[in-house]
């Protein structure tokens, strides 16, 4: 099996990192879900549970200096790129210690220091910002790459088409990552997208397009790694379609059983990316159960800490309502 070969090329540190990030994302989302279900107002929370292998597989192939542009379903992207979960959680609590000082919330979490250019809930716009970041890398000759996540639903919006063509004609170092989780809100992908595989649209921009199993972190990593190499070599952008699944509703208030069956959910959950990773690593003897258990425990503790941090953090002063409207205050 090709799988086993892929394991071989990754260091133990990288494998541990992958497990760490996938489980941290899941822990973050599950704990947040408990809070929200218990009544914490959060505007909208779009849980990433089930899709962890996509964010982690992609970011595993990126360097810290590289950039990602995200979507409304962005918590997983943030954590995979290295955003600290403490300010993330504080942000969701609307606290001044939040990543965005409480002004952004779930749909705008940003940490430019780790190359996370922002959760962005206007569908498709992130792909254009990644094109701009890649242009910046090219003009400034920094060798950076920009990855843009977007959903199956977002694949139908014009901005994504424009972004792909721009990246292609300018041969920019962009990796377009389509997270095809089968749904846009309640709309099935087979209704909304005319073509079977969104990756096939890459041909319309003369760029490579591949379909990968988005519940296999190695498959995602491998495809991204190839795309990143291409990008860094100046050969231009690529499109990777990751077939994945979100375990919960579109947002915290949505019941997905109004548009999909229990059987379908079970099939997807049976291919859970974290369990597959764990079983594979243990079976092959690459990692020990104690390694993984330690990570689980650490991430649980980290979330305890993040929630405690968020809880005790101060609220923004009401005066913050009117700060940071302009980058530079107009001359008076």
């Amino acid at each position, binding site marked *: 099996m090709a799988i086993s070969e892929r394991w071989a090329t990754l260091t133990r540190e990288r494998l541990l990192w992958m497990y760490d990030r996938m489980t941290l994302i899941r822990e973050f989302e599950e704990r947040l879900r408990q809070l929200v279900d218990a009544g*914490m*107002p*959060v*505007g*909208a929370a779009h849980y990433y549970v089930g899709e962890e292998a996509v964010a982690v597989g992609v970011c595993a192939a990126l360097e810290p200096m590289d950039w990602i542009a995200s979507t409304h379903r962005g918590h997983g992207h943030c954590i995979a790129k290295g955003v600290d979960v403490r300010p993330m959680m504080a*942000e*969701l*609590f*609307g*606290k001044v210690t939040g990543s*965005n000082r*409480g*002004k*952004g*919330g779930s*749909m*705008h979490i940003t940490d430019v220091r780790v190359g996370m250019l922002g959760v*962005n*809930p*206007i*569908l*498709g716009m992130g792909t254009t910002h990644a094109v701009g970041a890649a242009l910046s890398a090219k003009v400034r000759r920094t060798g950076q790459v920009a990855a843009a996540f977007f959903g199956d*639903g*977002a694949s*139908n*919006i*014009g*901005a994504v088409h424009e972004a792909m063509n721009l990246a292609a004609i300018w041969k920019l170092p962009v990796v377009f990552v389509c997270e095809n989780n089968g749904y*846009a*809100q*309640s*709309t*099935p992908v*087979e*209704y*909304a*997208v005319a073509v079977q595989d969104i990756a096939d649209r890459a041909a319309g921009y003369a760029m490579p397009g591949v379909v990968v199993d988005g519940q296999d972190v190695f498959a995602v990593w491998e495809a991204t790694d190839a795309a990143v190499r291409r990008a860094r070599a100046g050969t231009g952008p690529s499109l990777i379609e990751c077939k994945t699944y979100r375990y919960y509703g579109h947002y915290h208030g949505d019941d997905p059983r*109004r*548009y*999909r*069956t229990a059987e379908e959910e079970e099939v997807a959950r049976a291919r859970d990316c974290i369990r597959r990773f764990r079983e594979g690593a243990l079976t092959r003897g690459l990692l020990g159960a104690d390694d993984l258990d330690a990570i689980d425990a650490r991430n649980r503790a980290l979330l305890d800490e993040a929630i405690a941090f968020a809880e005790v953090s101060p*609220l*923004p002063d*009401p005066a*913050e*309502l*009117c700060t940071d*409207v302009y980058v530079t205050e107009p001359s008076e």
Partner: protein
Amino acid sequence: MTTAVRELTFSQAINEAIRQEMRRDPTIVIMGEDIAGGAGRAHLGFVDAWGGPLRVTRGLITEFGPERVLDTPIAEMGFVGAAVGAAMTGLRPIVEVLFVDLIGCCYDQIINQAAKMHYMMGGQLDLPLVIRIPYGARGATGQTYGGGAAAQHSQTLYSVLAHVPGLKVVAPTTAYNAKGLTMAAIRDDGPVVVMENKFLGLAAKGPVPEEPYTIPIGRAEVVRRGRDVTLCGIGRMTHVCLEAAALLAGEGTSAEVVDVLTLAPLDEATILESVARTKRLVVVDEDTPTASMARDIAARVADQGFDFLDAPVKTVTAPETPVPFAAVLEAHYVPRAANVVAAVHTLLGTGG
């Protein structure tokens, strides 16, 4: 003869308007993202899985089927354009833009195509198109942590639509007028934007006659009589004005409240007639102030009402900032009755 009139929510009232009109006229279609939901899955037993952001469209698919109730992909420019094209060629489409924050993805279709088509073509074509757009922030919720929908999902923005000649823009405020204005919008042979406040969509409830009726587009309504000051409200702010009027009554100040209802074309006459009596005006708008409807109305009254105004026209609006996430910040964002009362105190030179 008179039976107790049913109470419906704002959203249900709009639903009824659409439903009754669709029954009457087979050329009416409705389209938007997840207005039905679970598209194409009837064979699995899934229909009507979503029903739009305010659940306004729930149930339409079961009555009218997927040919007239069209779920769309995420392609605002495309499907609003398709609605424009359909309106040019024999249908009467109703199209929903999920939130006003998304008009940036279809603004050309609204302001350059729908608004101007009739004029540019020298009047040769009607354009019976309704564009329904939910809008608004949450405002004060009393929550001490967490937050709302933030900067890109909480805007009001109707001024950037009302600005454009050719569009009619209405903002209903009660279940009753939501049904009547929606019906009037559907029957209008030109493009009409219906701005649906998200908060009212869920919270406003009131008596709604079962039979079809329209409320004329282009008319404001005096919803409370008063002598000392006119409070002019737009959308949800009309309720804030009514609250403020109640508070002011407790202080011995008699406030008249005018519900603007139609932003474009504005019913200047009704507003001016009220201010001619009260000599004072406060315009209340939850949009940000620069080039807002609040300042528009204020400027018109300050000009045409110069001779009878006893005090400057005041506006109460959101601050000049994007909408913040944190509940404690958003609480100060949307104007509240206290802000309106304070503005009246300034006008009257009275203290709170």
